């Protein structure tokens, strides 16, 4: 296998709206998801969860469960298979009697049917000894300074002298913005089928897992189970969404693996319930953003300070990089960002679509709206005046900074000109009407460690293989187009294979890095294949290659940008909010497939609007768990809420970043959207709500 720096490729298939190559399987129901694969004599596994936030398991009484028809066994910390490594506190389940959060897995029930397993789990009696726990994020307990924030960014940054600059500024804005806990809630709940066997005299664990990265799951589990990575095979041919929550293996995957260890080879199916997802499969921390902006009368920023207070779990650290985008968004000579965490006895937070950028840009972009008002400026104009020449903290030029183009094009499309400056100045019948704008950004990322395989097939066809996952984004289709252009053939000449650790290594479907990372490897492998085997290869020839990076990351700062415009209507009597129009305009590099890309961007906008208006996981600190743990109480946007959502993009290509010219589109749609909606709600009503979600109670009067 070789690594090479791939050359840019021409777009022929790329840029066309190729329908999803797996569309028929999905709409006809023949696509099998993680617990739907036919396996011989499967057992069902159900989780028994702690009902205290901190303490220990005193005893587990299995008798009633075992007496229930169909129940085969109960596994708890006294007899669960031992793990070789236990550093990952989230995955090291059933290794001791400690309880670290309410909802933690304390036992497993195996049965012949999922109904019997569920009833068995209900019948297991767990005696617990409770210890005082802390489960509430407050300003006064968020004092822990992590070494790094996700994924490996500086915790704090400082340039110049913020305090002096603020003291001398004409206009100072100081406000606190809050975002709530949020849960990813993909359509397909997390689920795993697991079985153990032997191969070449060694143990072999096989999983069908609903995952965003099969290689990552194998890499995480294998050492904990005392195995080499090759001994764990993970497959995820189809995944019903993840939004980050399937980016890493969560505890239920280990539960399935441990349970299957005890069955003498019978496969185990474990499907997490919607309610269990609120405790076990990751979520976005609540955030408190303390902003201070100092500007001159013309709105030019002299100082930007963003102090973040948020939480992590005592079991495993996850520090959301909430201030990361503040570091590169606007020019200001004096700047300071920081992250402090409350370390709580709670479930383990994780990635949720645009971790960091989503809550951070919500706060920053509402603060900018407030600053625009304080300076008497149009909000779009304020952003124009603070456009930096270089990435303000890295000091590098942006390879492409499309923000102002997005703002201008969006403003024209949306009809921003002539917007009344005064809030609460437009009423249409029963509704107050307002408009708002916000910027969006997301870093362009390419992950190392990707390898693709090209194999020539009969009839001038090619098998293209990479162990990445299509979680419903359309990656399988986009990669088919990339492979076609890289090999200079039509997309129907490509047989794409993914979703299996038996295929070459690939990074996670996360960080909007999938197409960039996997696509670059495919292009590298295709170019290497052509070098080795020419354009008329005999069938059966193979090449594996990965894509090297040049020195571009040292020369440029790579970011996507966007501008979001929202119209919000607030009912004068009831305070109810509606978003009849939402427009996002994006600079994201080349769009490989306009159909799947639009669905990503529109989906991001909808999720951002949903975060603005509805989504809130309410943790009851007395118990320690989230009590709005179903979709009747954790509201996400319903179809009736999604009326005029539109996304478009600038025609561009960034081949300094990837040979395809693309930069990644999965997350930017959610960034800034909640701020645009919040700014429009303020413009409609004159009521500034700084804590999400914006619910009717805040506007009724």
């Amino acid at each position, binding site marked *: 296998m070789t690594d090479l720096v791939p050359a840019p490729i021409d777009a022929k298939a790329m840029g066309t709206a190729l329908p999803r190559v797996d569309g028929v399987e999905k709409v006809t129901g023949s696509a099998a998801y993680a617990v739907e694969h036919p396996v011989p004599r499967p057992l069902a596994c159900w989780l028994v969860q702690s*009902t205290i936030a901190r303490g220990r398991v005193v005893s587990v009484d299995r008798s009633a469960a075992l007496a*229930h*028809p169909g129940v085969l066994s109960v596994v708890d910390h006294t007899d669960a298979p031992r793990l070789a490594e236990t550093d990952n506190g989230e995955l090291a389940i059933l290794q001791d009697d400690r309880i670290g959060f309410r909802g933690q897995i304390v036992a497993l029930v195996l049965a012949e049917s999922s*109904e019997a397993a*569920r*009833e068995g789990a*209900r019948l297991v009696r767990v005696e617990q000894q409770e210890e005082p726990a802390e489960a509430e994020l407050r300003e006064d307990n968020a004092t822990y300074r992590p070494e790094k924030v996700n994924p490996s960014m500086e915790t704090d940054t400082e340039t110049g002298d913020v305090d002096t600059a603020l003291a001398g500024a004409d206009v100072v804005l100081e406000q606190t913005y809050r975002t709530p806990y949020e849960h990813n809630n993909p359509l397909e709940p997390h689920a795993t089928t697991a079985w153990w066997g032997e191969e070449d005299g060694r143990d072999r664990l096989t999983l069908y897992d609903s995952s965003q990265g099969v290689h990552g799951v194998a890499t995480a589990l294998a050492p904990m189970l005392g195995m080499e990575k090759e001994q764990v095979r993970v497959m995820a041919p189809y995944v019903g969404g993840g939004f980050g929550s399937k980016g890493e293996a969560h505890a239920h995957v280990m539960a399935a693996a441990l349970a299957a260890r005890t069955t003498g080879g019978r496969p185990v199916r474990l499907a997490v319930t919607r*309610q269990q997802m609120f405790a076990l499969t990751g979520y976005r921390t609540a955030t408190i953003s303390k902003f201070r902006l100092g500007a001159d009368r013309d709105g030019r920023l002299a100082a930007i300070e963003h102090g973040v207070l948020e939480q992590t779990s005592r079991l495993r650290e996850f520090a959301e990089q909430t201030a990361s985008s503040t570091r590169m968004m606007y020019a200001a000579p004096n700047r300071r960002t920081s992250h402090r965490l409350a370390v709580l006895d709670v479930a383990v937070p994780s990635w949720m679509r645009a971790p960091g950028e989503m809550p951070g840009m919500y706060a920053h972009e509402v603060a900018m709206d407030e600053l625009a008002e304080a300076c008497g400026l149009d909000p779009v104009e304020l952003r124009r005046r603070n456009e930096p020449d270089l990435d303000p903290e890295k000091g590098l030029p942006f390879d492409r900074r499309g923000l102002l183009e997005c703002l201008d094009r969006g403003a024209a499309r949306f009809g921003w000109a002539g917007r009344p400056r005064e809030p609460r100045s437009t009423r249409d019948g*029963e509704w107050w009407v307002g408009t708002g704008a916000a910027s969006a950004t997301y870093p362009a990322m390419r992950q190392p460690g990707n390898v693709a395989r090209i194999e020539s097939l009969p009839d001038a066809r090619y098998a293209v293989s990479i162990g990445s996952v299509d979680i419903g984004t359309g990656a399988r289709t986009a990669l088919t187009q990339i492979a076609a252009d890289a090999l200079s053939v039509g997309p129907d000449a490509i047989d794409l294979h993914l979703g299996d650790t038996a295929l070459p290594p690939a990074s996670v479907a996360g960080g909007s890095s999938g197409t960039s990372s996997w696509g670059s490897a495919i292009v590298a492998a295709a170019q290497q294949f052509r070098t080795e085997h020419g354009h008329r290869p005999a069938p059966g020839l193979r090449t594996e290659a990965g894509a090297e990076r040049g020195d571009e990351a040292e020369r440029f700062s790579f970011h996507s940008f966007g501008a979001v415009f929202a119209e919000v209507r607030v009912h004068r*009597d*009831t*305070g*109810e909010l*509606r978003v009849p129009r939402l427009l996002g305009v994006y600079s994201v590099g080349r769009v490989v497939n306009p159909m799947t890309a639009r669905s990503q961007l529109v989906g991001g906008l909808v999720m951002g609007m949903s975060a603005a*208006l*509805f989504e809130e996981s*309410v943790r*009851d600190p*007395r*118990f320690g768990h989230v*009590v*709005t*743990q*179903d979709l*009747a*109480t954790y*509201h996400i*946007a*319903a*179809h*009736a*809420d999604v009326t005029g959502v539109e996304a478009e993009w600038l025609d561009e290509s960034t081949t300094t970043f990837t040979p395809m010219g693309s930069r990644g589109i999965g997350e930017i749609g959610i960034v800034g959207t909640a701020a645009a909606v919040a700014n429009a709600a303020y413009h409609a009503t004159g009521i500034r709500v700084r804590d999400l979600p914006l*619910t*009717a*109670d*805040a506007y*009724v*009067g």
Partner: protein
Amino acid sequence: MKELAYVRASDPAQAVATVADDPDARFLGGGTNLVDHLKLGITTPGTLVDISHLPLDGFEETADGLTIGANVRNSDLAADRRVRAGWPVVSRALLAGASGQIRNQATTGGNLLQRTRCVYFQDPTTPCNKREPGSGCSAAGGYGRYNAILGASPACVTVHPSDLAVALAAVDAAVLVLGPGGRRRIPAAELHRLPGDDAEHDTVLGHGDLITAVELPASALARRSTYVKVRDRASFAFALVSVAVALDLAEDGTVTDVRVVWGGVAHKPWRAERAEDALRGRPLTEAAVRAAADAELASAAPSSDAGYKVPMVRNATALAFRRLVPALAEEDR
């Protein structure tokens, strides 16, 4: 899920006898509420007596109005032309609830007897007097945005979730019940109860009481009726507050008769009788409606989380009247 026996009732009387004889038996209607509860372990009956196929699914025109079988699906009831013309509030309330799929499955009887959506009731790991009498009420002092503002007790602070029940109380509907002791007729407004020190029981029905039908009496009041529901999203959410208004107005704009019933504010549909009294016999104005609502709300005792419901239900009441009487003078606020 606990293993249970499933019985298909052969007729209403046999269904009643089967359930009445077995404290562990429950009627099964469309199952959209009960089956969730079985899965979550909120209730663990030993026997389900399926009544959903019994021929209680007709509309019968009577001298007084319309009688609706308990098994009429929510979607069919909402769509019926007679209901839409004669009792628009009923149709509107149903269409403001749940989703198309659920309304296709849910029955008239089951809708009225759906249980609270209190998050602690729904979670068997937390104390709840309604689910487990004597265990305590987690909602008092907990997540309280949806809590009651009227008629709550220390035992239970939740609200009744049915939109249909609110509408029925506004049109003087009656619920026909077949019980172990025979047939009864209960005014819809008296079906549900306040918690007092017994949070367990939502209604005045006893074990084995089967709802067989709902009577809708025709009236000028019912013909001029509407429903306003305020919720957290545009569709598919339970009410924060809701208002059913039925109005009979004289030529000169004086209120001949009126019903004002509030949802989302109490353990039962809240018939705002004080507000009705304040409006009856007087000219209808926006100010009069607001003053009437305030008179009713004088006894409201909201927790801080639910305090917004006071202005919300007042405004929603004004909105409902305005929808019914577009000419209603809009006064400056």
